[in-house]
């Protein structure tokens, strides 16, 4: 048996093969299929057009209300209604209703619906997030999702893997988001097209699951199919916390073949900010300091977890959001929001002048709940800053981690936390 990367191992195991090689085209069984309010309705229509009646196995399906919820308008309400009815008809237990839901990429791991070695597809491009717990997870479209519902399997082309080795101890105010923005700036937005990123190195090993989620989440911004981190004791401890007791350690074979190796030393990395209109446009924050901001958003599937809000809270407590700036805080799930309340952070954020919104993708996709007007500029802890992504096509969004976002909300302009404190 030839030596394999993590992605190759998972695809071999799910297609009943001894080994696979990059370029192989195969059908593989999937462990979960994720859909959201914005992608499920089309899948339901295609599923019916396929002549399918019952899904292959309802326990494979996860359906999450997160993009346009609470419903922004009548059409959005209909999208959720279609998904709700389908979940009921098909007997899907893992259906997440508004109020008991959250952003899908926090819901899936926190509800124990993914574990190391799993193969997961989702009709959402940031499905690659679950690489954080050692799964091969990737985004697909609505027709692919319908096919997976009907068959329990889907076609894949075995990707080659880029090994990314991140080493060095991060400086204060520098976190996982700064690391991944820096890595993407080196790869470019198509640097990992059709490939998988496999993250290694002491920096990654020292990260908790929240931080690893930030890393894996943005793999797609370099064009990657997934961004996988080997599962270790930190992963297994987290899996037990979410009720999964049979999770396994998983790593690549020592002599696995890689497409290439990218080595990044982050010991001296400064806080990063990606300029409009590409997530690969990361520069040291000092290069954009002083940029006026109408809106700051802290949240999303990239940076909407307890660790992210802790970073923001430490900088914001007792301070005020600048009068000409709006600050949106978006806890990813109900449980994360409850943690913010239990810790007293929620009150401190509101005292500072922030608004805490329900768990939603809303402003990250320019959908609702904080859309930008003509010529407005924002600083978001989200993952994309394409033209028109967050509102009017002339609006601009800079991307950063929660530390830069928090101090910038206070000053009303992009600020280096190293200088402010």
């Amino acid at each position: 048996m030839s030596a394999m990367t993590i992605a190759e191992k998972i695809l071999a195991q799910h297609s009943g093969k001894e080994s696979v090689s990059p370029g192989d085209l195969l059908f593989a069984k999937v462990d979960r299929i994720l859909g959201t309010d914005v992608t499920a309705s089309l899948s339901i229509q295609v599923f019916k057009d396929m002549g399918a009646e019952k899904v292959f196995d309802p326990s494979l399906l996860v359906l999450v209300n997160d993009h346009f919820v609470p419903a922004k308008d009548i059409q959005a309400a209909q999208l959720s209604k279609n998904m709700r009815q389908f979940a009921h008809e098909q007997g899907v237990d893992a259906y997440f209703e508004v109020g008991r839901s959250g952003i899908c990429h926090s819901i899936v791991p926190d509800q124990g619906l993914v574990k190391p070695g799993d193969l997961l597809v989702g009709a959402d491009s940031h499905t690659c997030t679950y690489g954080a717990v050692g799964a091969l997870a990737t985004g697909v479209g609505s027709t692919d999702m319908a096919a997976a519902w009907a068959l329990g399997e889907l076609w894949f082309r075995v990707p080659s893997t880029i090994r990314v080795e991140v080493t060095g101890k991060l400086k204060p105010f520098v976190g996982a988001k700064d690391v991944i923005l820096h890595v993407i700036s080196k790869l470019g937005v198509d640097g990992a097209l059709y490939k998988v990123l496999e993250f290694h190195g002491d920096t990654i090993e020292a990260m908790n699951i929240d931080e690893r989620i930030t890393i894996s989440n943005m793999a797609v911004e370099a064009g990657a199919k997934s961004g996988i981190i080997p599962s270790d004791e930190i992963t297994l401890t987290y899996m037990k916390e979410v009720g999964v007791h049979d999770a396994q350690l998983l790593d690549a074979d020592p002599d696995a073949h890689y497409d290439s190796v990218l080595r990044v030393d982050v010991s001296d990395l400064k806080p990063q900010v990606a300029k409009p209109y590409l997530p690969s446009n990361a520069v040291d924050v000092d290069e954009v300091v002083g940029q006026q901001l109408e809106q700051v958003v802290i949240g999303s599937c990239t940076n909407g977890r307890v660790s992210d809000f802790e970073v923001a809270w430490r900088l914001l407590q007792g301070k005020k959001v600048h009068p000409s700036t709006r600050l949106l805080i978006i806890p990813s799930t109900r449980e994360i929001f409850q943690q913010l309340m239990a810790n007293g952070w929620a009150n401190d954020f509101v005292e500072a002048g922030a608004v805490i919104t329900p768990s939603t993708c809303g402003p990250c996709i320019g959908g609702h709940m904080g859309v930008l007007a003509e010529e407005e500029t924002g600083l978001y802890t989200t993952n994309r800053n394409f033209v028109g992504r967050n509102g009017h096509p002339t609006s601009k969004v800079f991307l950063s981690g929660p530390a830069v976002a928090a101090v910038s909300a206070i000053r009303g302009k992009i600020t280096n936390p190293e200088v402010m404190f």
Partner: protein
Amino acid sequence: MEGTVFRYGDNIDTDVIIPARYCTEYTADKLAPHALEDLDRTFVQRVKDGDIIVAGKNFGCGSSRENAPIAIKGAGVACVIAESFARIFYRNSINIGLPILECPEAVQGSMEGDRLHIDIKTGEIENLTQSGHWKAVAFPEGIQEIISLGGLAAYVRARLNPVK
């Protein structure tokens, strides 16, 4: 097929192909009027059935929204030629039957307004305005099978209801 080239650059993302504000809809008739709206406001008025989008690297990067190829196809575009495609857009286009061809040489050799003749089956592209003749990267065998069946939905239909 023969059509007029609409030439765009690198990294044409799904947010400019069809912004999320229109993604509460998922049918071609509702999406097509907004195709490429944030990139080229006059595209929908100018495009004619059978026309061709020619673009640079990483076409369709960003979201998984299938609404993107549906909007382009619904607007009348018969084929997208690019230097490379983002992987979800690539899958989605094959699945819904929007012909796509990877051919960096044809992209370099074609300008806005050129007339192209394309044979989708062979991947041959001829520029009728400026002389040029290229062959696109062939689809892997398994994907060709899905395309020849008429897309993924037809493939699944055939598997669920095999001809007895």
